[in-house]
């Protein structure tokens, strides 16, 4: 146990050093862009995974919180000149509050109906922002005024700075997940995901646990929304509430390993690398190729390894660990 604990720390330190040093060695803007995408979607996946992975509440509507975060900070910045750093937190709070009625509505349903309801809530929010031209620019959206180098307004000249911001977000997301996973809440979440009735029977207040974790998940997803808008300097309802965000949040977690700490990260690395390779081979001219490949990977995972890449590893471990005493 002692050595494996030490090994874990060693790996973490090495990993951290590599991640911190990476932008110093890789200067290609294309590559940095891919790293940022990987970190961003890992982070969104981590946020989704808290609710969707551990508690198996399979939402396909996390774009709702991504969009609310993006719009909150952008409205505060463009209309009132408030820094997106503050707007980011404000967006998180807005998303948390929005998650209460949305959760109230959706958590009354189980299984596929929950999923359908979450899709609908995100779509309704998108339609609302399309309609409300007065404070949110309607369908045309808006660009974010470029201030050059303005770190206090979350604007940087170097792409590597964005890299460090989103790396920080991912670390926070992973740290929160780690704390939850190791505590009673983590056990409760998995129990709810496995069998909600059985969990209730042993004293788990399932609605309350789900509500609380959904709030955290919404908060984190909103932070990603703010970051993304700042990164691309543009916002409109179609990008902020894009169904693709909802899909990818779920996809990276399922492919990597649903309900595991590192699953979303591993899934994102696989999917985004595949997508980058496809793009460099075929160019971006072929529409639909990325999601075609994603859906094939998703189907393969579901049919052969529903527990994802990490689940595959644990299965092997358990088989081995279970046989060992028999041999001894």
């Amino acid at each position, binding site marked *: 146990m002692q050595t494996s604990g030490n090994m874990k720390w060693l790996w973490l330190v090495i990993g951290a050093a590599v991640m911190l040093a990476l932008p110093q060695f890789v200067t290609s803007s294309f590559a940095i862009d891919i790293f940022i995408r990987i970190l961003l979607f890992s982070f969104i996946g981590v946020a989704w995974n808290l609710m969707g992975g551990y508690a198996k509440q399979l939402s396909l509507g996390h774009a709702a919180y991504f969009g609310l975060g993006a719009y909150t900070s952008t409205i505060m910045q463009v209309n009132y000149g408030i820094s997106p750093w503050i707007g980011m937190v404000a967006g998180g709070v807005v998303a948390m509050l929005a998650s209460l009625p949305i959760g109230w509505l959706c958590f009354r349903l189980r299984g596929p109906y929950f999923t359908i309801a979450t899709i609908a809530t995100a779509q309704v929010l998108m339609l609302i922002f399309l309609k409300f031209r007065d404070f949110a620019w309607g369908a045309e959206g808006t660009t974010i005024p470029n201030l050059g180098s303005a770190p206090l307004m979350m604007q940087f000249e170097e792409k590597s700075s964005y890299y460090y911001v989103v790396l920080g977000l991912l670390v926070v997301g992973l740290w929160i997940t780690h704390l939850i996973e*190791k*505590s*009673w809440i983590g*056990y*409760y979440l*998995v*129990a709810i995901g*496995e*069998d909600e*009735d*059985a*969990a*209730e*029977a*042993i*004293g*788990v*207040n*399932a609605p309350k646990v789900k509500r609380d974790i959904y709030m955290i998940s919404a908060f984190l997803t909103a932070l990603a929304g703010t970051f993304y808008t700042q990164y691309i300097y543009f916002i409109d309802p179609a990008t902020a509430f894009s169904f693709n965000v909802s899909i990818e949040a779920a996809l990276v977690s399922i492919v990597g390993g649903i*309900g595991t700490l590192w699953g979303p990260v591993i899934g994102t690395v696989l999917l985004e690398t595949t997508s980058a390779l496809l793009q460099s081979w075929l160019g971006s001219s072929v529409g639909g190729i990325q999601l075609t490949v994603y859906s094939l990977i998703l189907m393969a995972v579901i049919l052969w390894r529903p527990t994802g890449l990490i689940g595959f590893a644990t299965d092997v471990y*358990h088989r081995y*660990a*279970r046989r060992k005493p028999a041999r001894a």
Partner: protein
Amino acid sequence: MAEALVIKGLSKRFGGLRAVQDVSFTVQENETVALIGPNGAGKTTSFHLITGFHRPDSGSVLAFGNEVVGLKPHDVCALGMARTFQVAKPFGAMTVLANVMTGAFLRDRHVAAARAKALEAIDFVGLGAKEQTRAKDLTTIDQRRLEMARALATQPRILLLDEVMAGLNPAEIDQAVALVKKLAASGLTIVIVEHVMRAIMAVARHIVVLDHGQKIAEGAPKEIVENPEVIRAYLGSYVHPPAQGDAHA
């Protein structure tokens, strides 16, 4: 002895079906009471009503003097009443230890304390060697043991066991009977739904018989087997006499 569980006039309809109709009985503290009856008599529904999974149309359930009707299942559990399910519901992807710790967290949120409490419960039900096994890899009887350990970890005063012996072979039934007796000896009040007559005779001091949602008899085991109405209920709707080892074939 104090009254642990007082059930009065419990009724529940599903559509036109009267699943449970005006059922009343009392369980004394530290007593083991069996709830028996032919299939569809309303035994499991009664459990659902008592533990908050269904809300009764009328009636009351007092656990140590506290009204339980209207509470959610987790509140009922917090009051000291834990149950198992007819079809075992283990958290399949979790280890045995994690399953039972989830129950233990009700009384203590600290991981170390919950772990200690869980290991105690796992040992008690005889799953000691399998604490790191994933629940879905357990055999039927071990899954039942796990359910009991998980319920025990919530530190209940009343334990409701729903057909914990269904699907077990005769040797396993003996083990299960021994376990239920051990639970009773530890001071728990137990309500057990069971088809295996041999087991009921071995563990229950008092039997309540349901048929078509109504209580048709209640008393000591000896009186019950001789009660003409009970015999008729079983012969009328049940192909096998209830004395067979496993009525769930």
